[in-house]
């Protein structure tokens, strides 16, 4: 078992670097598509303002993209550096989508992004447009494969445990690719990215209109952002609901924790809108509840009950006991591969092997666990309820706010009254909100998966590397310092570019940025 400090520090480091990386990803996803749309309008109409818009938003996209690429490498490397046992245990399945992401998606976007910036004079208008679309396509494929990998962590299908190699191996790769959890997460996450891109364009444009600057560009940008953002915000909420349904089928503990549902709700289950979850006391104080809604979200019916935390813990205890049988049989198989009796026992209980591993925290032997230890391990399957409960509610609230914002923007733009001052102020102030929603969403998805790295298969505390804690302290401190410095520089440059704004339709083929930035001082 790895040092418990290494586990906590590695989790902290992975969480921080993932949330940092996730500051750049949604904007890349959304802006890449918005750029492609704007440039398509330019190619179709020949109006140069649309090219200027593509270039201006492209500048901001470029600064953001460089950070996304750079911080993305950290994510991939950490599986090996900090989660070595995880890499060994599930690399056979988990590695494949990551590698295919590189082959199919990342190469595409990263190779063509250079031409997006440097190819304006070297390519025909249509040629450049194709390049821009390929970049957008690459970003979106990239998200698809990453979420197939992540979806497998949430709902590990198509894999079996191999007793010779002591790890999970692919049984059916099609199941891994067409994992329903992965598909829902993909659409939900890219939609969240589109919302982020749309809010970014909307907010910065609103700022310009409030200041009375760059009006032609800002108005057109807002129009694009309004319709794109409306479609995206509707999709993000609908597909988020779809995720809820899929979680109801597959990750019941996560759903119960998000809803702070301590006891099983008899059908039709009601939904707690707000309340104060108390993990110790296992109850939710001051709960405001709406009947029927939970049942509809989780089961798409009003006749099925929704399982509560305490009942799920009882179920986990049963699975731990069954897993202990599998674990014992596994030990016998390791002595003698040909032991047919042990093989039969193992095969009958292998689906619970992961639950037995939860006991490693209490007894390294696993098979000698006492009832108290089984109960404690079963209790460990409950994630921290209150942060999930609140994160989820703020995220959903923001989702509905975005729908309202974009509906308003859409209506105002249709009536050509986008320059309503109150609306502009709200739109500008909304700038940071999609990031808040995206980070909370990440937390709900991954915090809600605890205590597992692979749901039901491998506990987080076993997944870490056997490295000295001092190494992880060193890298964690290094990342915090280094990333903070980069964040300051990145924000400074973004603000500078935004403050200066686009050049008026210049006769020169492109705008000398370093000159304009300096001139803007």
């Amino acid at each position, binding site marked *: 078992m790895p040092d418990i400090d290494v586990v906590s520090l590695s989790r902290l480091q992975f969480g921080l670097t993932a949330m940092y990386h996730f500051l750049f990803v949604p904007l890349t996803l959304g802006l890449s598509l918005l750029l492609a749309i704007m440039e398509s309008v330019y190619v179709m109409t020949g109006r140069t303002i649309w090219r200027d818009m593509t270039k201006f938003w492209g500048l901001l996209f470029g600064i953001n993209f460089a950070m996304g690429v750079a911080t993305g490498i950290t994510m991939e490397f950490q599986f090996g550096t900090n989660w070595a046992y995880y*890499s060994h245990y599930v690399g056979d399945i988990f590695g*494949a989508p990551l590698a295919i992401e590189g*082959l199919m998606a990342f190469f595409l976007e990263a190779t063509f992004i250079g031409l997006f910036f440097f190819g304006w004079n070297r390519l025909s208008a249509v040629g450049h447009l194709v390049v821009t679309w390929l970049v957008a396509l690459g970003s979106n494929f990239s998200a698809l494969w990453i979420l197939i990998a992540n979806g497998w962590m949430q709902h590990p299908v198509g894999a079996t445990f191999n007793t010779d190699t002591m790890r999970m191996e*692919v049984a059916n790769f099609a199941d891994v690719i067409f994992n329903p959890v992965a598909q829902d997460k993909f659409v939900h996450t890219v939609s969240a990215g589109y919302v982020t891109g749309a809010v970014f364009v909307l907010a910065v444009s609103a700022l310009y209109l409030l200041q009375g600057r760059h009006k032609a560009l800002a108005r057109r940008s807002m129009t694009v952002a309004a319709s794109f953002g409306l479609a995206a915000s509707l999709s993000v909420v609908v597909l988020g609901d779809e995720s809820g349904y899929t979680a109801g089928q597959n990750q019941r503990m996560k759903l119960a924790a998000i809803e702070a549902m301590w006891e099983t709700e008899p059908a039709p289950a009601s939904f707690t809108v707000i309340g104060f979850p108390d993990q110790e006391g296992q109850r939710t104080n001051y709960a405001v509840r709406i009947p029927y809604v939970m049942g509809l979200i989780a089961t798409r019916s009003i006749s099925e009950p929704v399982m509560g935390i305490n009942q799920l813990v009882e179920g986990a205890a049963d699975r731990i006991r069954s897993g202990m049988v599998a674990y014992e049989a596994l030990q016998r198989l390791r002595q003698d591969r040909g032991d047919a009796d042990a093989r039969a026992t193992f095969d009958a209980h292998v689906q619970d092997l992961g639950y037995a591993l939860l006991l490693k925290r209490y007894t390294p032997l696993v098979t000698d666990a006492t009832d108290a230890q089984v109960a404690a391990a079963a209790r460990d399957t409950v994630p921290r309820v209150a942060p999930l409960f609140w994160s989820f509610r703020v995220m959903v609230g923001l989702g509905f706010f975005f729908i309202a914002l974009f509906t308003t923007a859409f209506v105002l733009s249709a009536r050509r009254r986008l320059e309503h001052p109150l609306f502009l102020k709200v739109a500008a102030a909304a700038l940071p909100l999609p990031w808040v929603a995206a980070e909370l969403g990440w937390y709900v998805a991954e915090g809600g998966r605890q205590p597992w790295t692979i749901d039901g298969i491998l506990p987080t505390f076993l997944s870490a590397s056997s490295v000295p804690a001092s190494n992880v302290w060193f890298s964690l401190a290094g990342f915090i310092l280094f990333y903070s410095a980069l964040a300051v520089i990145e924000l400074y440059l973004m603000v500078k570019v935004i403050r200066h704004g686009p050049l008026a339709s210049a006769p020169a083929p492109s705008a000398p940025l370093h000159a304009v930035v300096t001139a803007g001082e």
Partner: protein
Amino acid sequence: MLDYETLRLLWWALLGVLLIGFAIMDGFDLGVAALLPILGRTDLDRRVMINTVGPVWEGNQVWLILGAGAVFAAWPALYATAFSGFYIAMFLVLCALILRPVGFKFRSKLDGTAWRHAWDTALVVGGVVPAVVFGVAFGNVLQGVPFHFDTDLRVTYTGGFFGLLNPFALLCGFVSLAMVVMHGAVYLAVKTDGEIAARARGVVPWAVILLLALFSLAGAWIAAGIDGYAITSALVPDGPSNPLMKSVARAPGAWLENYHRFPISVAVPALGYAGALATWGLVRAGRSGLAFITSSLAVAGVVGTVGVSVFPFLLPSSSNPASSLTVWDASSSPATLRIMLVAALIFMPLILAYTAWVFRVLRGPVRARDITTDGGAFY
């Protein structure tokens, strides 16, 4: 259907292709960054140099990401062992690899001298550190590193960071640095004109001499003083991927064994020598474009030499040789290797095709006057 043994051999070869691809494509980026203070005397010089890699570094960096992804998917035990074992070294490489792209992007965004000098330094660090660290890593592969597996196949690395910085490994680090400097100088000779190109051509002979001298020294050191490893139990090339099912012994001269058994494999190190010498000659003859190809071949020869020497080992363990990772016991399952092979066969040709197209669109040297007249289109 391909059998497990063939699949493993193919993935061993593909691992080589990806590492060599990374060394060739990202190698010239690293070399250009390392040469910034030597060849770039003015800010404009340095901007010209940076802009030769400006539009392509993102794509080049993906070779590393794909290489790591492929190790994860095809050789998960190697991924777990090497990345966690070389923990601090990996952290340093990461910082350097983040610094470099960010440097390219951010440097030209402001005009201040201090700002640009700071990024110049960052870029040099971002070029030199990964080149040296990757070389050091290969140097340690050749010597074996201290790690072992327990019966759950949890790997524990027992050496520290400074143990990696032993004299032989540092020598390999300098081989790697000399190699990317040669490669980067040739690239600059192709992609710039006038004085910078002339200076770059001037660097090539020195880089070639240094590379070949250090490479030969490393070879002699292996022949004379570094024990190789050999599998002493019966080979089971299609057995389960469990490193604890074999026995291994340290054996003097084992790293030269493959060259005796398969004399044709001498072609790999020979390619390193021939490629480097041809590069020198071609640059002198003013054929820099061809020289870039021979320089790439030299890179392939040098990187490939390590792979051929240690085959079938991937990462030997010095403290518990039986835990060593080999081609026969560190791979993914046959199903995963097959799926990944199909994916590689579909996408690698596509990647090579569109990368070639992008380089074609960007053909021609970066000129100082382009940057002065149209600064905004450049870094």
